């Protein structure tokens, strides 16, 4: 337990101390909320979609979580390159504990990031029910856990940051844009419908929307089942890949 705790604490301390990273990671979601939220709001209203800010905010919160979570996982590459990973790998402790500690730390950081964006979205006009918060927080943490584990799994396979752009453009961006973050899932063209339904983030956002607004596309049970199952699977894969790291 001590090992998991100290690794978790380290991630948190690093996050809190990197002020530029916190400020920087707020910029993009803020831009999405302002440009898309206010920009598409009127036309969304005219198409009888209702309030676009209400619809968009959960998607942008999930975006912030996605980016922070994957990046936290990927940070292993930096630790590897700058030596700190060696310090943890020569310690007499099981690899799985190191992986769990790191992943929980990264997921916590990503969840905090999600909460920060949530607070900003309130300023932009997002109005969820107060009673929805505990469930929403739970979904936020689940999304964070899934994508931190994914980042860890990917980082275990990479030796340096050269592949990072590739991951950003061919994994993270598609995961975000092809989820239901920006548009409703009803009445989509067939191909896009299939693509969105194999994007795990879609279920995370649907769950988050269900929690905040009480409107669901798949139903909360399916969201939970898919998200939970996939998180468990990726955690196991990530733990396996992490245990195989040689320096």
């Amino acid at each position, binding site marked *: 337990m*001590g090992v998991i705790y100290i690794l978790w604490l380290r991630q948190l*301390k690093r996050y809190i101390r990197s002020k*530029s990273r916190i400020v920087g990671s707020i910029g993009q979601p803020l831009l999405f909320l302002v440009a898309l939220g206010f920009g598409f709001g009127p036309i969304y209203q005219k198409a009888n979609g209702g309030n676009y800010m209400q619809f968009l905010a959960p998607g942008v919160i999930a975006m912030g979580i996605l980016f922070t979570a994957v990046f936290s996982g990927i940070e292993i590459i930096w630790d590897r390159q*700058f030596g700190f990973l*060696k310090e943890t*790998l020569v310690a*007499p402790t*099981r690899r799985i504990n190191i992986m769990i500690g790191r992943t929980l730390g990264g997921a916590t950081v990503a969840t905090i990031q999600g909460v920060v964006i949530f607070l900003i979205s309130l300023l932009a006009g997002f109005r969820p029910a107060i009673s929805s918060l505990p469930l929403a927080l739970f979904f936020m943490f689940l999304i964070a856990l899934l994508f931190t584990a994914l980042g860890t799994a990917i980082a275990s396979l990479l030796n340096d940051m050269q592949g990072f752009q590739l991951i950003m453009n061919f994994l993270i961006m598609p995961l975000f844009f092809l989820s239901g973050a920006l548009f409703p899932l009803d009445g989509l063209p067939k191909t896009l419908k299939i693509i969105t339904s194999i994007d795990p983030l879609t279920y995370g956002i649907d769950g988050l929307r269900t929690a905040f607004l009480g409107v669901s596309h798949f139903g909360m049970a399916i969201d939970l089942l898919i998200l939970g199952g996939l998180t468990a699977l990726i955690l196991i894969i990530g733990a396996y890949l992490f245990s195989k790291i040689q*320096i």
Partner: protein
Amino acid sequence: MENIIEVKNLVKKFGDFTAVDNISFFVGRGEVFAFLGPNGAGKTTTIKILTTLLKPDNGQIMLDGHNPITQANEVRKSFGIVFQDFSLDDELTAFENMEFHGVIYKVPKNIRRQRTEQLLKLVDLWDKRNNLVKKFSGGMKRRLEIARGLLHHPKILFLDEPTLGLDPQTRNHIWQYIKDLNKEENITVFFTTHYMEEADRVASRIAIIDQGKIIAQGTADDLKKQTKTNLLEDAFIALTGNKIREEEAGSIDHLRMARRMHIKRS
């Protein structure tokens, strides 16, 4: 004398390249053992295998009676290490780095705090314990790493070029400390260095490795006699030749550049 490290017929290949080519050696308990060789000779690879970071392709290894492959955690408890590259967390303070180490090595809290204070005072960093490591100079980081490597009272201390890039004052200070430690606590020291006079002064025995093979072993005097030279440096060159070795720039160097540029920009 009982051997704390025993290596027989160790082989490690990376693709076609044989980094460690069938080497055998031993280190006695309480010895100060120097492992010397030109760049790319296989020193660091050997240390990585001994410290469970890499798996060998062949050979038998025993560290303090345990096998690094099958009993990795037993082996990990027995040694402390100072790596060739820095391995501290820059965003944590000196004290937090010690604390992190103590917790993952499961040193009980009261002993951990007591030893942290003792060790940080010893390496002259106690006053700076709450400063972030990224503000430290190279010498201070090295001293902190040595303190950290000793926190869990290891039986063996691995030092991979511990004095690289340090000024003579700091080097002297560090070696004096390591020699005292070896004498008082009977800690076995296994180190590599490019400073031959360090090896000559400190090591009780020396092995020279070149192109993955151990080409000479013995005391400094043995090696000088064998090559009919007066200085260890001359003996080293007589054994390994004059040719300058090239090491491929690894991805680490690329990334260092990237980070430096990144820091400049932000």
